[in-house]
Each structure stands twice: as structure tokens, then as C-alpha cells.
């Protein structure tokens, strides 16, 4: 039985503006598997991910990552976790090499091994020609590759990716997917949030469908079909649409109109 890498239990998060992002969300991920997090916009995927990497604190619930209770011990577990945010903010002023070096130092990679590791990653992800170019000059795809390199520079045991293939050309997507499959084979647990359902279907060994802050179903494709009472040939997209429609989204109300000259007008 593979070891559990992430165990989230009954996570609740309500933002300051009253938006309930997570409503008792629970999920479990194991080593060596690629788990897809899919769900409509605003379902709570990014919030859940940000909690797991320590960028947000839940209002209630418990998260264990790589055996650490991350609320009680918010630092130690991070050395084993890699994270690639959606549309990552990168230091535009650093060169590709400097940025990876900076991340490597933050990730405690020994100085004598850092240069070799940077070069290895840059070669694998075809970033070499841009080694001494500032991040500000990189294309969207190159930035995504750089963020991916930063997330994997310390060879994490758990890799968490939020929309990693957004804005990357097909060749780049293929490269990253290959790398993910390779890492999973070597025992890395990968949690990937994506809207690309066909990719999730092919890449992920398990999928969790999240809606309105809850994990409504988890399993491999066959398991999802059976749990959702779907046909044998139904795609993940069809299952996803069926389940999220069943969960039902309320009709949004028109908010009160505000004009420059009157504070609130109906």
C-alpha cells in the first residue's frame, strides 16, 4: 500500500468578503500517483492548494502533508513539497539562472550541487538559450517552464501544480506531462489542478471533482463512472458535467446598482 502524502480533512475556509471557498473538503493523495483536481471556477481548488502549501490558513479542519500536521508544524514539511502556482508571479528582474539559483538556495540545495542541478533542469526544459535573459523577456510558455523548474528543483516528494499547462504550446505541454509521468514513476505524489479534462483523463491516475468547496467524488475513471452511474464509454468531461449539474448552481442574483451620484440605486 503506497504511503499517504496528503490527507485533508473537513477543510473550511471563508474569505473576508464572506465567500465560502471550502466547505468541509476532504481528500487523500498517495505516493506515486497523479491526482487531478477538477471543478468549476470558484469551486475551491486553488484555495485548497494554497492551504496545502502554506499560503493560506483554513478556518477549520486538518491537513497532514508528508506526515506533518501543517497547522501545528508549518515549516518542516515544505522541504518535501514543490509548488507551481497558477499564473506565477516571478521576479522579473532576475535572469533565468539567477531565479533558479535563488529558489535553490531557499530550498536548501547545497551550494556545491546547485549549479549542476540548475543546468540539468534548464537543459531538460529547454531553457538553456534563455539562461542569462531576465524573466521579463520570457514568453508565457517559457515562464511556465521556469516556474515548473523552480517547483521541481529540489526533487520534491509531493508536487502541487495549479493549472500548470496554461499558456504552454503543445510541445511544452508534452514535455511537462512526460516529466510528471516520470516523477510519478519514481514515487513522487503529484496533485494537479486543471480545467483541461482530456489531459486529466489521460495524465491522472485518480481524479477528485470539487464543487462548491466540497470533494464530491474521487477515484479513477472507471471508479468515477461507476459512482456516477455513467455509461462505460462516457468521458471524464461528460461525467464532470453530469455531476456538477446534479450538484446544481443557483441562478445568480443581479447585485444592487451603484452610480456615481447616488450611493445605491435599485
Amino acid at each position, binding site marked *: 500500500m503506497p504511503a499517504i502524502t496528503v490527507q485533508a480533512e473537513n477543510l473550511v475556509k471563508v474569505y473576508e468578503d464572506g465567500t465560502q471557498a471550502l466547505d468541509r473538503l476532504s481528500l487523500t493523495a498517495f505516493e506515486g500517483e497523479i491526482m487531478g483536481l477538477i471543478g468549476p471556477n470558484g469551486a475551491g481548488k486553488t484555495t485548497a492548494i494554497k492551504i496545502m502549501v502554506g*499560503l493560506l490558513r483554513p478556518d477549520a479542519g486538518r491537513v497532514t502533508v508528508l506526515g506533518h500536521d501543517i497547522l501545528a508544524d508549518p*515549516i518542516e514539511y515544505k522541504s518535501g513539497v514543490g509548488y507551481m502556482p497558477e499564473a506565477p508571479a516571478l521576479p522579473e*528582474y532576475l535572469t533565468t539562472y539567477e531565479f533558479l539559483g535563488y529558489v535553490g538556495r531557499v530550498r536548501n540545495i547545497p551550494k556545491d550541487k546547485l549549479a549542476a542541478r540548475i543546468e540539468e533542469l534548464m537543459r531538460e526544459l529547454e531553457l538553456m538559450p534563455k539562461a*542569462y535573459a*531576465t524573466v521579463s523577456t520570457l514568453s508565457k510558455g517559457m515562464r511556465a517552464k521556469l516556474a515548473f523548474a523552480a517547483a521541481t528543483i529540489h526533487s520534491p516528494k509531493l508536487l502541487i501544480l495549479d493549472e500548470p499547462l496554461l499558456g504552454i504550446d503543445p510541445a511544452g505541454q508534452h514535455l511537462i506531462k512526460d516529466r510528471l509521468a516520470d516523477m510519478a514513476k519514481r514515487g513522487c505524489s503529484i496533485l494537479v489542478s486543471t480545467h483541461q479534462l482530456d489531459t486529466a483523463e489521460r495524465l491522472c491516475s485518480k481524479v477528485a471533482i470539487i464543487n462548491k468547496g466540497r470533494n464530491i467524488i474521487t477515484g479513477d475513471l472507471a471508479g468515477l463512472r461507476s459512482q456516477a452511474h455513467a455509461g462505460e464509454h462516457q468521458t471524464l468531461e461528460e461525467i464532470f458535467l453530469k455531476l456538477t449539474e446534479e450538484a446544481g448552481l443557483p441562478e445568480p442574483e443581479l447585485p444592487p446598482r*451603484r452610480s456615481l451620484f447616488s450611493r445605491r440605486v435599485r
Partner: protein
Amino acid sequence: MSNVLALLAYKLKMFFGPSYRGRFGPLPLIGLAIMLVPTGLGMGYAIGSYMYTVDADMAIATLGVLFGAGLAFGFIFALGVGVAAHPSELDFLMTAPVRPREYLIADMLFEFSTLVLTGGISMLSAVFGFLWGMGKPAWLVVPLLLVAGLFMFFVFAIIQIVTVLRITRPGGRVRTVALVLLLLSLLPLAALANPSLSATVRALPIPQSVFGTVAYDIMFGTSVSLVDAAVLAAYMVAVGAVWLSFSNTYFFHGVRPTLSAGLGQIDMGTKMAQQRRLIGVFGRTTGTVYLNVLTGSDLSLMTRLNLVRVWRDGSFAFIGFLVAIWLFSGLSGTSSGNSTGVPITLLQAGTWPITVIAINWCYYERGNLWIAVVGGKSLATYFKGLMLSLMVIGFGITAVILCVMTAAGHSLRARDVAFTVVSLVGDSVVATMLLTKIQVKPGAFSAGLLVVMFATLMSGAVFGLAASLLVGILGGTTALMMAVQTAATIVFAAAVALVGMLALDRLARGFEFS
């Protein structure tokens, strides 16, 4: 012309809407207008008092300089963007069946309204101050404002003519003519540099002199001469006629968006685009100014990281420019005086850049901190590095200033050194401590920015004053006492820095990224 009011309303809502709908409603706008009143009054009074002491030719030349500055600003604006367009106007208004003339009228009215609503009260107070300085009755404010209003529309029309011509007749000829006219608009400055030219400047039939003469005649109760009135009318009619003939020429294809944010707002998208452009320029030096990630302690890495950032994002160049102006004004100010001491205001040149860099950090660097947060390392090292980089910059600037001033023959008092050194350290400490707690949100009129700016400067000054007092109490000019004063300064600065380091250890633990 049916679209003019709709266009004007849209522009006004885009510009004033965010601040009006903010937490404090229209109060920030009113506060801003009120804050500018003393400045307007003081400037008006200073110019009025000066004009009271000079003859008619010089007074008219001075007024000509003021009108000329307005005209020059108009040419600069026309050569740059020309119309105040929000990005959404390009997408939705300029793709709709809106006639260019309708848009131009709306834009002219928008610019007039914006000037009146944001600067109207300070403009009014400046005219009052001006009349007060000259010892003239207050009721004259009405005709003077009418002349000013007429001049504003004259400038707006010229801006729009140049803009339409620049866009529709590319090739540089329009730009060259506009540049020549820009330089000519500054002609009255010659009279300020050489007062014997004031009569010649007054006699020139250029718009600035004509407007200046009419304003002068109104102030002194003399009837406006027919010639002046005719020349003024001729200018207005000519500009109006040219505007009419070009205002329906299609120019939307060359409009660049300018007003990407409303009053007091920060548009992060535009700011990031600006930063990328600057990094494109300064990032070319990556071969000479680079971050060596393979050496040094973590604290050293974080300090160097922040110094590289300040260099590559252009802050350093901006600060250099500020310091050059500061130094120039300081040197020219002290050269005519009797004091041989370095003015304390000059020594404080290092404190403003610390504030500027701290504010820039909020805009550009805070978002990058996710790297350190998810990295599992204590953020205290990052913030200590930031604090040290601020100190390095502050001391670097001060050292340059001291070298220049010493070369110019100025000396330095021990208590001023103490004030400068300790306030620079205090500024850096307080700025960094605030940055761990304050998040500048891109809303209208960010209170966070004001806190960073004022709290940093004020607390730095308080630390500096305390050190200065201590050194003053120690007194003495013997070598021994000088050594004691120096030691006291170093100990004081080190103590402030140490307290800062300890505080950052604690504050960084509570840092919240989002």
C-alpha cells in the same frame, strides 16, 4: 453631437468613480483638494510678492512664463498621448459609431472638469494668494479666472490639433514643428534670466505675452488695449478654426490608452508593464551587475537580491536622478549663503529613496514572496536582507553627497553625522517592519502607502534627533571627544539595527502572504 454627454459621463465615472466608491466616499478627493490649498496660496503669494517689486515689463514677462509653462505642458502632452483615454474606451467607445469631433469635445470637457475638480480649489487659492501678494482687491479673482479659463481652452484646442495631426500625418514633421513651438512657448524665461529682455518679451505678439498683458491690465485696472484684445481674439479664432477643420479627421487608430487607473488608484497591470520596460533597459547589464547565487550566507544573498532588484528595475536610476537634483539645488543654495556646514536637508537625501524603494517593494516584490513562503525557510532572513539593502542604498547616497560637498569645501558637524546615520538606519528598520505588516491594495487612495511614507520618515527623524541630542550633550571638539561622539553614534545606530533585527524575527513569523 448626441454622444458627447455620454462620453463625458463615462470618462468622469472611470476617473472619479473608484475614489468616490471607496471606503471613504468623496472625502479623499475633498481632502486632496484641501491639502493643496496652502501650497496654492503660498505659491500665488510668492509670485504676487515678487511681481509687486518689479516693473510692468518684468511682471508681464513673469505672467508670460506662467502661461508659457501651461502651453509647453500642452505640447509635451500632445507629443506623448494627447487624449486622456481609458483602455476600455479604445475597446468599446472607439469601435462604436462615435465621431472624432464628439470624442474630442468630450475629452476637452473631461480635462477641464478634471482640472477644476482636482485642482480648482488650489487654483483659486493661488489666484487669491497672488492678488494678496500684489496688494490687489479680491474681486479681481473673477476676471482673472475667466482669462485662465480662456487660456485653458486655448491650450486644450492646441493639444488636440497637434494630436490629430501627429497621428494622421506620421513622418516626424508635425513632431518637429510641435517641438519648435514647445521651445518658443518657453521664450519668456529669457526675461527672467536677463531682465533687460523683459520689454522685448512683452512686445512679442506671442500668445503667452498677450495673455500675460491682458491679465496684467485687468489686475492694475487699466483698460485692455484694443491691439492686445484683437491679437488675443485672433489667436482664439485661428486656433478655433484650425480645430474645426481637423477635429473630424479620424484619429482613433493612433490613440494610446493613458488613464488606466482612476484618481488615486494604482493599476498594477500598467505598473508591471512599466517595470518590464525598465528591466528591458537596465536588464542589459546582467553581465556586470549579477546575483551570484553560489556564494555568501542566506542573509548576504537576500541583501544582494534586493540590491540587484533596485538596480535592474530602474529604481536606482530614478533615485540617482532625484539625488542629482537634490545635490544641484543644495549646492546652488549653499554657495550663495555664508554657512560652510553641509545642510541637514541635503544629508537627508538618503531617506526619501528608502521610502521610494519600500513603496516599490509593495508594488513589485511582495507578490514574489510566495517563493520564500513555500520554500520553508524563515522569512526573517529575507526581511533582514531587505533592511540591510535599504541601509546600503541610504548610506551610499549619503556618502556620494558628502564627497561632493566636502570637495566643494563644506564641513560636517558631529551631531549632524549622528542624525544622518541613525535616521537612515531608523528609516530602514521601520520601513522593513511596516512592510511585514502592511499590504498595499490596488484600490483608490491606499492608506497603506501613506503609512509607509510618513511613518518611515517620521520615525527615522525621531531616532536621528535622539542620536543628535546625545552627541550634542557629549559635546567637545577635542580628538578624544570626537572619538567618543563617533563611538556613541555607531553604538546608537547598531542598537537601532539590532532592535530591528530582533523585531523582524518576530514580525516575519506573522507575515501573511495573501
